[in-house]
C-alpha cells in the first residue's frame, strides 16, 4: 500500500512537471494535458523499475521509449506532431542532479587545496558526466523512436484502424 501511494505521488508530481514544462516550451493548450499524462506515466514506470532493481540508465531507456511509442498514439488523438507531447514528457527525467554534481566538482577542481584534500573529485566528475550524457542519449532515443522504427515516414501516415491491418492479412 505504501508503495502504491509512493507511485501515485510520483505520478502526480511528474504530471505537474511535464504539464508546466509544456507551458515553458509552448506546447498547444489541448496537448498540455496529454503531455502531462505521458510524463507522469513515464516517470511512474521509471519509479517502479528503479524499485525493482533495474539500473538507472536501462530504467530511463524503457520509460522514455514507452513515452515515445505512446506519444505516437497520443499525437493522433490531439492532432499534433508527437514531438510536441513527448518532449515535455521526457524532460521530466532530465539528469539535472548529475549535471549539477559534475559541475560543482568542476568548480572545486579549480582550487588546489580542495583537490589535495579530496582527490576523489576527478572520478566523481567523470562518473557524473558519463551518467548525464548516457541519460540524455536515452531520452533522445525515446523521443526519436518513431523516426527510428518507421524510417522516413510521417507519423500521420501510421494508421491504427483495424480494417487496413485485416486487408493486409488477406
Amino acid at each position, binding site marked *: 500500500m505504501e508503495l502504491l501511494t509512493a507511485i501515485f505521488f510520483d505520478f502526480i508530481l*511528474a504530471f505537474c512537471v511535464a504539464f508546466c514544462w509544456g507551458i*515553458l516550451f509552448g506546447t498547444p493548450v489541448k496537448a498540455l494535458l496529454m503531455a502531462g499524462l505521458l510524463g507522469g506515466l513515464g516517470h511512474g514506470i521509471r519509479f517502479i523499475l528503479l524499485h525493482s532493481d533495474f539500473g538507472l540508465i536501462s530504467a530511463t531507456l524503457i520509460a522514455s521509449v514507452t513515452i515515445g511509442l505512446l506519444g505516437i498514439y497520443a499525437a493522433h488523438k490531439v492532432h499534433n506532431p508527437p514531438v510536441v507531447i513527448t518532449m515535455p514528457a521526457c524532460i521530466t527525467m532530465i539528469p*539535472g542532479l548529475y549535471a549539477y554534481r559534475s559541475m560543482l566538482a568542476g568548480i572545486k577542481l579549480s582550487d588546489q587545496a580542495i583537490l589535495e584534500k579530496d582527490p576523489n573529485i576527478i572520478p566523481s566528475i567523470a562518473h557524473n558526466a558519463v551518467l548525464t550524457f548516457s541519460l540524455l542519449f536515452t531520452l533522445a532515443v525515446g523521443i*526519436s523512436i518513431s523516426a527510428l522504427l518507421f524510417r522516413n515516414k510521417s507519423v500521420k501516415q501510421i494508421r491504427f484502424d483495424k480494417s487496413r491491418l485485416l486487408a493486409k492479412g488477406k
Partner: protein
Amino acid sequence: MMENKDKAQKKIKANEVAEFILDAGVFLMASGAHSGRVWRNCKRMADHWGYHMNFNPTFTGIMVSVWDDKNSENAVTRYKTAPQNSVHLETLTQISHLSWEIADGKTDYDDACRKLEAIKNKARYPFWLVALAVGISCGCLCTLAGGSPVDAALAFCGAAAGSAARHFILKKQFNQFLSFIIASAITTLIAGTDTVFALGKAPEMTLATSVLYLIPGVPLINSVIDLLEGYFSASIARSLFAASIVSCIAVGMTLSIMLLGINYF
C-alpha cells in the same frame, strides 16, 4: 480537371517556392524542430508544387535547392539565416498542419504565405504564466529528487524569479547567453540561501533542480536525434549551442556560489 489544377500550380516559380520553404524551414528550425522534421515538412510542400528539392540544414540557417525536372531554367539555390533560437513547440504543430493543407491542395500559395505570417506573429504564453509554470515544475522536480516542502518552496521562488528576470533581459535585446548567466545567478542566489541557512532537509537538491528550467533540453535532444538521422553539421551546431548554454549556466552558478561562500557547498 485534375490536370488543369496541376498546370495552374506549376506556374509558381522556383524562386517563390524556395522562398516559402526557407521561410517555413528556418522558422521551424529556430522553434525547436529536428532536421528530419524540417525536411519532411518542406518536402511535402515542394512535392505538391511539383518541384524536386534538396537541402542542407545547419542550425544557423538552411541552404535549399529547388528545381523543376522538365524545365532546367526553372531552378534556384538559396540560403537563409535562422532567427534567434527560441523554443516554441506550437509552431511545429501549426506549420505541420499548414504543410498538410498545402499537400492536400486546400491552400494555394498566397493563402499559405498569409497563414505562415500569422503563425509567426502568434502570441506566446504570457511571461508570468511561464514563470509560474517554471516555478511549479522546479518545485515538483525538487520534491521528486527527495527535497522537503521547504526546499521545494525555495526552488519555486528561485526558478520563478530567474525566469522572469530572463524574460526582461531578453526583452531589452541583450545577448541571450548573458541572459542565461544572469538568470542562473539569480536562481542560485535564492536557492543557495537554503544551504547557507540550513533551512531544508536536502539543500543540495534545491540547488540542483532550481536551475533545470534553463537546461537547453530541446537543442540537446535534437542534436542527438540529428546525429541518429545523419544530419551531422546540424547536430554539431546544436550540441555546441547547448554546450555553451550549459557552460553559461555553470558560470552563473559559480558566481553565486562564490558569492555565498564555496565552503558551504
